[in-house]
């Protein structure tokens, strides 16, 4: 039921934010389209944790500002590498172990690594990630421990955490 209401609220907010017309006719069309979408989602059986992922939103809202700061920091490193008169990069491949338990937490962690310029997740297998980095110093496993911890705190349910 909570997922149902969450999806409904998100759809209504999305319609209102994108339309800007508030005549009864238009509102009626909007209501009809939201209703149709809900019926289709129900028939497809996708009103679940993945269809309405709003339960983890508060924790994710704590994680994203920290990630934004990290992205800005590593952006600066890559911009300097691009503009330096002599190239001084040392491309590296590294294996990173993650403590995240659920798929969602692992995807968030891998996406965060890819999002910060200078490091890209090449492959995920089980709890090991293959990461390609622009600098050897930026690809050491110790550097990813904090991001890993924060991802686990943001996405893993409490009982699975070590």
């Amino acid at each position, binding site marked *: 039921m909570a997922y149902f209401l969450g999806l409904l609220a998100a759809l209504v907010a*999305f319609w209102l*934010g*994108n339309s*800007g017309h508030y005549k009864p006719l238009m509102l009626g069309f909007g209501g009809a389209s939201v209703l149709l979408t809900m019926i289709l989602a129900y028939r497809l059986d996708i009103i679940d944790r993945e269809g309405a992922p709003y339960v983890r939103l508060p924790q994710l809202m704590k994680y994203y500002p920290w990630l934004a700061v990290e*992205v*800005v920091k590593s*952006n600066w490193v*890559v*911009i300097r*590498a*691009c*503009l330096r008169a*002599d*190239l*001084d*990069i*040392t*491309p*590296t*491949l590294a294996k990173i172990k993650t403590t995240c338990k659920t798929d969602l937490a692992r995807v968030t962690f*891998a*996406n*965060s690594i*890819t*999002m*910060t*310029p*200078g*490091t*890209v*997740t*090449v*492959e995920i297998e089980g709890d090991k990630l*293959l990461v*390609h980095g*622009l600098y050897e110093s930026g690809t050491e496993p110790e550097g990813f421990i904090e991001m890993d911890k924060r991802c686990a705190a943001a996405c893993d349910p409490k009982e699975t955490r070590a």
Partner: protein
Amino acid sequence: MGDFFANIGNFWEFLRHPLGGVACLAGGLLCIVSAIGVLRFPDFYTRLHAASVTDTSGAALILIGMALMAPNWLVLVKLLCIFIFLFLTSPTASHALVNAAHVAGLQPRIGPVGAANPEDEA
């Protein structure tokens, strides 16, 4: 007190267009920087790192600039939607590219490049 808030509102109306212009310009500049990086770096994997500057700070700064110059909140909501979709899809796209290259067997160049490697000419 109401006068004070009205003043702040006027000041913001006056300030937001230049601020938005500066943000858009900075974003465009970052896109050019990352294009320079794409041209200079030696192989596929390192070039992707340079391109990810466009994905993150370039796109974010341009969107922030447009949000500052937005005429009403409807435009703001649409820009927010674009930001969220970019935020979720651009790392996925990068990962798909790198993973495809890795699966196809393209070997990344490992070790010092350029000035850090005395035997290198590039």
